[in-house]
């Protein structure tokens, strides 16, 4: 029997502020010597008071707006009480009844459908991160550099129905926070952490199964693999007539299995109450409006513009939009090209997602370091359009441009790559090629059409790739038919 998976996700996003949520310590913790970014506030010493980091609130509002949430005007922070050594105060300052963002959604692309699927976001709230524990033999080491780093928790409704959808959701979320510049979104560095609530529904009875929580999802791959594994595990149990217990599972990346982490659910024990050390936060609507106006164009809007105005296909647009700095480079080239020069958005797209992506991948360089000025890429495309160089020569020129940033005209001249479009010259070269290759010529005359490509290839060889291939083929055909 096929069960329907019902999945809800909680994603924690570390906000990339300079300072922590409630004190001025550096929010940098990755690769930093333990307990060097700490102060009496984030160490939870008595007599200290937290003060809200305005940037963290701004980043939360930005993300909330990008997630199509309603930003709540009246906000109260809450204490979540529990005892664990990574939590120096014995409570975490979080939000409970009054989160900053409510009722949003994210649209994701799926394999099954051309129209995007909508995942509802129940809430997004601001809280502080905990410290880091390292377990050594029979004791634990506590590093509180991470304690107090602003953390945004984003909770979906149970709208996700497969491992692929979950993967698409977290990927989209990372793309959004990167576009907004509010987080690195680096799962491998702990800047994004996922928890999954998963149950299987019997399609016949419509009955919801027991909810199992899966934690320790520290990479995009593990999100997909852990969910797929857990669906299979639960399906097996249910198919044999077994029952699922309400438990928390962990994901073991090395063994690629989920394992039982905790059986008892302690949710009721957090004794939330309003944080007495922080006055409430009543957001000025003018501030929210100002933040809204300052938002960058987001991926969905870019997609619509690329497939509409720029007449790109969905697939072409998707690869350009994926990364904001790529999209911005692409758009700057399109802007320089204007309407007049025959350098269409489509041609630019071909160069960016073709040669540029290839060379970026090969060199391991970042788009930010690319020295090809938009106007020079436009100039290169114009050289091709004007038949000054052919496509293979253009690629060669682009390679030199990628390394040096030099103007294409200069490179063309230096390497002598001007295309041979002189018909008399091409006819005489074609005559020589025909004379040198009697056998292929016979085959062509006998009706083997594809041999023409071999002969064109010979002309390209003789001209060291500089012949205009269309004119070369035309010259050959005329000679062979006469």
């Amino acid at each position, binding site marked *: 029997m096929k069960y329907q998976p019902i999945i809800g996700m909680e994603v924690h996003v570390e906000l990339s*502020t*300079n*300072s922590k949520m409630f*004190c*001025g*310590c*550096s929010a940098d913790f990755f690769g930093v*010597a*333990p*307990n*060097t*970014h*700490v*102060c*009496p506030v984030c*160490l939870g010493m008595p007599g200290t008071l937290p*003060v*809200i*980091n*305005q*940037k*963290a*609130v701004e980043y939360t509002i930005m993300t909330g707006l990008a997630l199509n949430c309603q930003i709540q005007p009246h906000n*109260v922070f809450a204490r979540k*009480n*529990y*005892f*664990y*050594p990574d939590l120096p105060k014995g409570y975490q300052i979080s939000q409970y009844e009054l989160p900053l963002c409510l009722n949003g959604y994210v649209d994701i692309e799926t394999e099954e459908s051309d129209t995007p699927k909508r995942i509802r976001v129940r809430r997004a709230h601001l809280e502080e991160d905990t410290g880091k*524990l*390292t*377990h*050594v*033999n*029979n*004791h*634990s*080491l*506590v*590093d*509180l550099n991470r304690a107090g780093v602003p953390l945004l928790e984003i909770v979906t409704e149970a709208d996700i129905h497969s491992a692929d959808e979950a993967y698409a959701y977290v990927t989209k979320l990372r793309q959004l926070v990167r576009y907004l510049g509010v987080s690195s979104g680096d799962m491998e560095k702990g800047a994004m952490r996922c928890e999954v609530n998963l149950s299987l529904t019997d399609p016949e009875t419509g009955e919801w199964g027991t909810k199992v929580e899966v934690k320790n999802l520290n990479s995009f791959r593990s999100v997909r693999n852990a969910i797929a594994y857990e669906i299979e595990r639960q399906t097996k149990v249910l198919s044999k007539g077994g029952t699922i217990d309400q438990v928390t599972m962990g994901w073991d990346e090395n063994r690629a299995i989920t394992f039982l*982490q*905790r059986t008892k659910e302690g949710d009721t*024990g957090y*004794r939330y109450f*309003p*944080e*007495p050390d*922080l*006055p*409430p*936060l*009543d957001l000025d609507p003018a501030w929210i409006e100002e933040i809204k106006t300052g938002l960058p164009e987001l991926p969905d809007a870019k997609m619509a513009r690329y497939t509409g105005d720029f007449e790109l296909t969905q697939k072409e647009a998707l690869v350009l939009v994926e990364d904001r700095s790529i999209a911005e480079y692409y758009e700057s080239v399109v802007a320089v090209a204007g309407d007049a020069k025959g350098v269409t958005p489509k041609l630019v797209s071909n160069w960016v997602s073709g040669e540029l992506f290839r060379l970026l991948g090969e060199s391991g360089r970042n788009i930010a370091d690319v020295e090809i000025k938009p106007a020079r890429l436009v100039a290169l495309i114009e050289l091709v359009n004007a038949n000054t160089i052919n496509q293979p020569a253009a690629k060669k020129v682009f390679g030199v441009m990628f390394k040096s940033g030099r103007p294409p005209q200069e490179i063309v001249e230096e390497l002598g790559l001007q295309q041979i479009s002189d018909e008399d010259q091409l006819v005489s070269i074609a005559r020589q090629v025909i004379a040198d290759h009697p056998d292929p010529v016979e085959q062509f005359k006998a009706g083997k059409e594809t041999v023409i490509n071999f002969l064109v290839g010979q002309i390209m060889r003789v001209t060291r790739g500089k012949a205009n291939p269309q004119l070369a083929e035309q010259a050959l055909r005329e000679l062979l038919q006469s």
Partner: protein
Amino acid sequence: MAKLSLEEVETIAELAKLTLTDAEKAMFQEQLSDILEYAEMLQKIDTTGIPPTASAIPLKNVMRPDVNTLSLDNEEALFNAPQTDEGSFKVQAVLE
């Protein structure tokens, strides 16, 4: 009459990571019940139409700019710790 059951006292003790003897449980059942009873006076006040408040001081919107201030150095940070190791606080092994 006690407001809290013994089980509730046990739950609270567990959340506070405290181990109580039976005599202590009985004592805290009394004391915590007294506190609840005392606080119950507030329940008698009619608060219809008054929005809930999270704070008793007339302050709101206190925020600071996202600017780094000086942190403690590692030695200062660990100064009061009973046990330390490799620049970290050292505690008994914690297993969930």
